[in-house]
């Protein structure tokens, strides 16, 4: 730590102004007061540095010292990230618990990567290899699911002069590279400033879907590997449950979950649940691929602002290894509010609803860090980073600035609706207003990989739901009985799509995840009912007997059919055909 020292001149909540910090730079980290509280310079104005402080500032006052660190707010990257739980500035919360107890006290510190963990480094590069940023030096088995690549850090280029299999903690030297400036020893750990996107070789459009096991998402509003989505909704509409479901079941290699300004108990829930949950693809506990960032609402607001960047930098680091990474941020509104609070204290000119004028550009640059990329490194590996942000609009009003700024940049909109939530229709995603701009890409992929009728079925089902919405208006005025028989049959099909397909209970062991194959068969069964009943009705079969077929109960229970007994759907379809054929005409 440098001795270049300034003094505090002003304190207002999390904002401290310091004078006399010579040569200080924007976004440099500083230490404030004798307690050396963490802070970051966010404005420089005629020699005065405004600092956002990541810890409670009570007891800080004018005259107290401020120290430079000469480094931008950075995270430590290396083996040991997986299974960790960090606060917004990458302090390991489990270690803080062990060292300082149940409450987060000021000045508490602990290295982000545990130095007591010992890793086996297996070299990939050889002596004599010419290497540059992103090239893989070797690997470390970080968890059962993550084979961690140790990569040449940014700014290092040259010839490997020493490399060998070693065992040790992250500070162990694994290779020496002779660069133009002389030999450089590389360890298993590197640092990266969080506000700066990690470079990639090039970006490409996303091509394959992220499967989530959530029927409404996979079938109707799919997200891609490397894509962006937002989940806005009023309180209690199900944002967190959607995010948790994605963290559990999305087919990503790595999940980074950022609890940004939300509840402590929700993080506890994840911590207690994930180690016990088994990934359906790998059969290993989900925690083996997960990194958690928890800066809950009552933790310092400046660290909340940083938490999103800490999370995304860690996510990018894994993407750079060639993994598919998914990051969930719950909730980006709390992040935006943290920006608003700091901006207010800086007395910046407020934009809409008091948010800073740069709100939308910050949001855009955050989502821009997602993508399907060719990573740095000579092997041209491909990595993806998908971002899913929850948004919590005041009063559930989607016209507010954070929702609007987000919608301008993300490609998928999962709009949560409190009317559906009140009716206990979960996930309460409004199927009429939500959209995915990846629909076409995913249709193509799904037609090829799951079933050629994928797109046709999806369109048919959505058409039925849209017609239902129109008919609903009519029913409210004249009653169901006044509708023509064919419309009443359509209403029945729509109801089945809603209740027997879209409705999905996240807390039911069997319903919480549905494979794509099963999703297709479930929907196909309902559509078959409609397709068979329609001509029957025309042939004179009574509507009521079509509405009260015994098989309808079985269709409703098709959700619970085991993933390895999908042939039961064939039997169901057979029964359905027979029951309808047997009705008197």
């Amino acid at each position: 730590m440098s001795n270049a020292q300034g003094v505090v001149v002003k304190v207002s909540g999390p904002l401290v102004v310091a004078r006399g910090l010579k040569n200080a730079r924007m976004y440099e980290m500083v230490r404030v007061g004798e307690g050396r509280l963490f802070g970051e310079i966010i404005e420089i104005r005629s020699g005065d540095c405004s600092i956002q402080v990541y810890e409670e500032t009570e007891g800080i006052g004018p005259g107290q010292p401020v120290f430079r660190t000469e480094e931008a707010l950075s995270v430590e990257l290396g083996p040991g990230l997986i299974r960790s739980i960090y606060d917004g500035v990458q302090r390991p919360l489990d270690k803080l618990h062990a060292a300082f107890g149940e409450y987060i006290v000021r000045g508490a510190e602990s290295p982000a990567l545990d130095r007591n963990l010992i890793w086996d480094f297996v070299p990939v590069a050889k002596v004599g290899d010419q290497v540059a940023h992103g090239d893989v030096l070797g690997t470390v088995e970080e968890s059962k699911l993550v084979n961690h690549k140790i990569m040449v850090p940014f700014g290092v280029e040259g010839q490997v002069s020493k490399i060998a299999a070693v065992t040790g903690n992250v500070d162990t030297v694994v290779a020496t590279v002779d660069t133009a400036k002389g030999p450089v020893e590389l360890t298993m750990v590197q640092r990266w400033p969080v506000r700066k996107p990690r470079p990639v070789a090039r970006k490409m459009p996303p091509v394959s879907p992220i499967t989530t096991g959530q029927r409404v998402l996979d079938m109707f509003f799919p997200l891609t590997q490397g894509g962006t989505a937002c989940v806005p909704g009023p309180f209690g509409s199900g944002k967190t449950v959607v995010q948790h479901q994605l963290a559990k079941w999305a087919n990503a290699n790595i999940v980074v979950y950022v609890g940004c300004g939300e509840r402590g108990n929700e993080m506890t829930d994840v911590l207690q649940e994930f180690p016990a949950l088994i990934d359906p693809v790998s059969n290993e506990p989900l925690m083996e691929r997960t990194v958690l960032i928890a800066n809950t609402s009552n933790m310092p607001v400046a660290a909340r602002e940083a938490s999103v960047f800490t999370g995304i930098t860690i996510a990018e680091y894994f993407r750079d290894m060639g993994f598919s990474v998914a990051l969930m941020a719950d909730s980006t509104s709390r992040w935006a509010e943290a920006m608003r609070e700091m901006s207010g204290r800086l007395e910046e000119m407020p934009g809409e609803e008091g948010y800073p004028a740069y709100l939308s550009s910050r949001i855009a640059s955050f989502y821009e860090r997602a993508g399907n990329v060719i990573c740095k490194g000579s092997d041209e590996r491909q990595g993806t980073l998908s971002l899913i942000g929850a948004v919590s609009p005041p009063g559930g009003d989607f016209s507010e600035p954070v929702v609007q700024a987000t919608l301008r940049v993300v490609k998928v909109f999962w709009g949560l609706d409190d009317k559906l939530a009140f009716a206990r229709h979960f996930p309460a995603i409004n199927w009429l207003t939500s959209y995915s701009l990846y629909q076409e890409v995913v249709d193509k992929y799904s037609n090829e990989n799951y079933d050629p009728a994928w797109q046709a079925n999806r369109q048919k089902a959505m058409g039925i739901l849209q017609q239902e919405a129109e008919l609903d208006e009519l029913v409210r005025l004249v009653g169901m009985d006044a509708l023509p028989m064919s419309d009443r049959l359509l209403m029945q099909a729509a109801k089945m799509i809603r209740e027997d397909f879209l409705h999905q209970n996240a807390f039911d062991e069997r319903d919480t995840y549905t494979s794509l194959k099963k999703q297709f068969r479930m929907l196909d069964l309902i559509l078959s009912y409609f397709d068979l009943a329609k001509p029957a009705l025309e042939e004179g079969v009574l509507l009521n007997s079509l509405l009260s077929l015994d098989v309808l109960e079985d269709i409703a229970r098709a959700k619970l059919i085991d993933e390895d007994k999908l042939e039961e759907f064939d039997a169901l379809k057979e029964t359905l055909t027979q029951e309808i054929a047997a009705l008197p005409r």
Partner: protein
Amino acid sequence: MVTREYRTAREIVGPLVLVDGVEGVTFGELTDIKLDDGSLRRGRVLEVNGDKAVVQVFEGTSDLSTENLTIKFLGKGTELGVSGDMLGRVFDGFGRPIDDGPAIIPEKWLNINGNPMNPFSRDYPNEFIQTGISTIDLLNTLVRGQKLPFFSASGLPHSRMAAQVARQAKVLRTDDKFAVIFGAMGITFEESEFFISDFRRTGALERAVLFMNLADDPAIERISVPRMALTTAEFLAFEKGMHVLVILTDLTNYCEALREISAARKEVPGRRGYPGYLYTDLSTIYERAGRIKGKNGSITQLPVLTMPEDDKTHPIPDLTGYITEGQIIMSRPLHAQGIYPPVDVLPSLSRLKDKGIGDGKTREDHADVMNQLYSAYARGKNSKELAVVLGESALSDIDLLYVKFADAFENRFIRQGEDENRSIDESLALGWELLAILPKSELKRVNDKYIEKYHPENK
């Protein structure tokens, strides 16, 4: 640290005093404000800029002038001296005894702002609290360590209901130590008397600690009430191993005090003039509920707020709902029908209910009965609305049964006596009795084996 005294107040704006020429003052520091007539008030430093400090005066600034006061900076934050002897005592909003009892000899001094609980250290709330109120226990189950607010409105009986919960709340099959902490913010004398005499009548006072700030008490003091209450709660829960129920009423008054300070500081206002940091501020109150791994005690919060204009999207209920783990909403129409407690069942929700119910906690059929009652009531209310538009004759026979169910549900299940303490088994039995109004084929949400075991017809 040396304490420093100044007579250099320059400006008085709303609840704030600006002092000049100060030295060594720190953010959040506690101050004594001595008036020349000998009276004393308390203040807290909200901002310090060079030699200027902005001090928020808890008792308000009436009668202050820039000439008649001395401000003494005390070199520490706002602290409360806590002790097990606080049980059974009544304090003002700043933690000073007002019940003529002896002074409290603190076992410990604690900063009232507390520290954020490490999310890693939390234990997930999952122990059922029986409140004896069917609409809570069966449909919106409260668990130890939860924060579950009452969204009420002016003129509704939220106080009676909160007192009933305080009186009746217990955890089945344990004899854990239990305490109630009551934080009153700007409520009327009558309401406060109601609580105190209710606590006294039922003997609850002995295991209660009361912090009282009434409607005619200084508004700014309301900022400290919940923090005093929760600091005491943390001490009793996590150092004395008690299960603490904290009732805070009325958060709306608290938020207004916050708005007053914000306006005096000329901050950029958020929605409806409330400060942009209202969410963060409220979360530093609500998030102090919870359990800690490896510790016995717990803090359960029941904050009460009145929704301005009965509007759930008003920033106070809105931001509260974004932080708490569900909400119990009171209904004016039910109240007008004379139904107590007027719980609006459909929009109310306890988000932690699922982990606190079922076999071994309440009863195996709890979740199914809950879901069935909920959906039957929703359908019944729908049918009633339909009948209003299209006429009763437009209803099918089954819809008519649902209407009958909805009426019975409101009159027998929601309605209960203020002293009626229903066990969870009684609530479940009542639920089954009402479900029997409907044909068994309608009970799609209940597992057949429970219908066999618990349906009144099968008994």
